[in-house]
């Protein structure tokens, strides 16, 4: 049975950034130079080859793009200057869009206009809700002689909306992840049958990789700095998420906690880390010195920019509240919330959340498959291979 080629596909993928897909002459340098390629997962050339030929099924079924951390070695040494690393990045964007059946990911990646409208739409929601609240209450809840944030934006209401929003985003994310699992594991294919036990037994690796992204370190020592920055960013991000989403009722308060209170120093830590990491990312993209930063799409700027805006506006809210300036506090709060909602809304399909999920998931699924194969092979009477 021969596989039909679809040369139009790579032109479609090129809309996600892979301008150089056909520049590749399939010499295999990129795969051989990659320290992560091997052990059953070979990339980038395999992925690039499938892209060139438009073998969409094979692309959707491949976890390899998620195993690449964009160290840039392949692009540095590519004899054709075909940028395999960026092509892999484009592949991840395309896959993200493909997993997202709402079509929202595709729109965001391929249209700058869509990015702007999505951000504006999302930012409009808190504004509208707050306006509605104050309109209903006759603008009585705006205390101007002192700072009363919880009167201006009642925390329990806000919390409820945030949780709802998160439920919506979480559902979305889970669905996308499920699509990814379906593409890779092909549950409908009787030959690819995987026992449930395998899924269960590998859950530990999912957790480890989710938290540490430790495979990144295999890229080589020179990339440890990037990994560490990323780990810090994630820690700050997760802390903030827990503080805001999980404990907003305690976080958004008009009581000023003493300095030793965990909420304060955790908040400070997270803010600092977020500012540092996001600024570093933005400066890197600006300078384009390393491979990973040489090519950036509008969507790549979104996440660090929003983090930076969020952190800075967060600090300002905090500061204005200390200073006892009601209007600046309320205004900054609104901006902060609008930015954060816009960020979450636009990035769930295309940004860091997706990466955080898809990468460990890909490793997990690879491990599940490997476990299944290792069990299956001895039964077939053959020698175990590795």
């Amino acid at each position, binding site marked *: 049975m021969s596989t039909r080629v679809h040369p139009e596909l790579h032109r479609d993928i090129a809309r996600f950034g892979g301008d150089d897909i056909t520049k590749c*002459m*399939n*010499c*295999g*340098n*990129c*795969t*051989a*130079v*990659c320290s992560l*390629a*091997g052990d059953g997962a*070979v990339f980038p*050339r*395999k992925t690039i080859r499938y892209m060139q030929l438009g073998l969409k099924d094979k692309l959707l079924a491949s976890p390899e793009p998620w195993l690449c951390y964009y160290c840039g070695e392949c692009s*540095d*040494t*590519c*004899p*054709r*200057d075909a940028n395999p690393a960026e092509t892999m990045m484009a592949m991840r964007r395309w896959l993200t869009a493909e997993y997202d059946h709402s079509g929202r990911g595709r729109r965001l990646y391929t249209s700058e206009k869509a990015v702007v409208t999505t951000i504006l739409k999302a930012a409009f929601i808190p504004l509208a809700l707050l306006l509605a609240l104050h309109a209903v209450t006759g603008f009585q809840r705006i205390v101007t002689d002192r700072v009363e944030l919880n009167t201006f934006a009642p925390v329990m209401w806000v919390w409820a909306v945030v949780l709802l929003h998160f439920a919506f985003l979480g559902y979305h994310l889970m669905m996308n992840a499920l699509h990814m699992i379906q593409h890779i594991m092909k549950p409908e294919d009787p030959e690819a049958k995987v026992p449930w036990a395998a899924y269960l037994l590998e859950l530990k690796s999912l957790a480890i990789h989710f938290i540490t992204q430790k495979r990144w370190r295999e890229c080589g020592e020179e990339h440890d700095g990037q990994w560490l920055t990323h780990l810090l960013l994630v820690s700050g991000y997760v802390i903030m998420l827990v503080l805001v989403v999980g404990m907003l009722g305690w976080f958004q308060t008009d009581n000023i906690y003493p300095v030793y209170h965990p909420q304060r120093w955790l908040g400070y830590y997270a803010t600092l880390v977020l500012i540092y990491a996001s600024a570093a990312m933005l400066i890197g993209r600006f300078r384009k010195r390393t491979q990973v930063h040489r090519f950036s799409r509008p969507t790549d700027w979104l996440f660090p920019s929003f983090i930076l805006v969020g952190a800075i506006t967060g600090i300002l809210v905090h500061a204005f509240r200390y200073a006892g300036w009601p209007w600046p506090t309320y205004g900054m709060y609104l901006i902060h919330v609008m930015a954060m909602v816009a960020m979450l809304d636009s990035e769930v399909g295309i940004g860091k959340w997706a990466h955080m999920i898809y990468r460990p998931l890909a490793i997990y699924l690879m491990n599940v498959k490997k476990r299944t194969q290792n069990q299956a092979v001895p039964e077939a009477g053959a020698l175990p291979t590795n």
Partner: protein
Amino acid sequence: MHHDKIDTDALVIGGGIAGLQAALDLADQGFRVLIVEKQPSIGGKMIGLSKVFPTLDCCSCICTPRMAEAEHHPNIAIMTYTEVRHVRREGDRFIADLVKKPRYVDEDKCTGCRLCEYACNTELPHEFEGDLGVRKAIYVPFSNAVPQVALLDLENCILCGRCEKVCPVGAIDFLQQPQETVVRAGTVVVATGYETIRTDFKKEYGQGRLPNVLGALQVERLLAPHGPYGRVLRPSDGKVPDSIAYVQCAGSRDRSAGVSYCSRVCCMYAIKQAMLLCGTLPLADITIYYMDIRAFGKGFEQFYQNAKAMGIEFVKAKVASITEDQQQNPIVRIEVIEEDGRVEQRQHDMAVLSLGLVPGWDPREVGLAAPAPDGFIRCTQPMIAPCRTPDEGVFVAGCAAGPKDIPDSIIEAGAAAMEAAAYLHEHTHVAGKETTTTCMK
């Protein structure tokens, strides 16, 4: 012997096979030719090769007669160890300033007996042997050098004076000075050849520091009838290699190495060396890692198929990196493209880099037109008159205009000679023709 002023019909810059052939083709038409060679001997890169593809002729045997023919040709004068400083036009003539570097040995007196070489105690890596062998501070460049005249490497000489004492003809002259010569010529043929890319061009290939990773020209010397070791063995420990890897496109077709073009000869010389190694080391396994095998010339494809039939393994893969293990065995990392695309690290006893060819000379240094973007001499009419350059009356032959194998260089040298001859006819009213010297072949 050489006066300060020389008048000639054609000035040939470079005494490699292309320069010699162009000079001979002009001289046979009755023109007077001056060959200027910067090395101490003519013969260029070809004289250092072992055998030639695809005929497997002895390279020295086909190169030395050409060298001798040029040396004895009544219409040809040769200046070795001489550099061209500047070339300019003056009406219909070219004026070239040459500087003959001091050999510290009187060329006319020296008989090439090598007594000085035997007396000298200073040992240095031998450039002609690809630094694998040893030479003295005073030495005849190589056994069939033309002229057979010694050369003193003053930089590394300890001035002990032994050579001076043993020289039977009193040829050693520590006080020799550079000698300037002005040449008037009707036309110029540039045949400045090529260099191989430096072995440290790619950090993934060990930056030239792995002892058992050799350049292809070094292997030519290992395979030559009296090479540095007298046989094929690897430099680090003298072991006879059982498994040899050829890394193709090392410094060719690789933008990351700064060379995007194909060096044209590496596929064939690698196959040739592999075949010769098969003959010398019948038990050795030889693997050639290639991107495309470019066996395009007359008899090349058949040669390639023969090599396959002999059991030389051809693996389609671009070698991504070379490292070494504790025994200094090179390890190449490749993707096995033709199978499942897995990554393999293969250990060999020796690895040979099929080094790409890069320009050996920048024409701007002497005031000629800038080279093409690839660094080689620019050809203005590559299709119909491939030897013409932007400087009218200056023609190019051989690898100076891009990588080329020996027959293509020789053909192009003939073409350059033809262009130069026609140019002389049309521009200098055949000055040389009237004084045609009868030549005895």
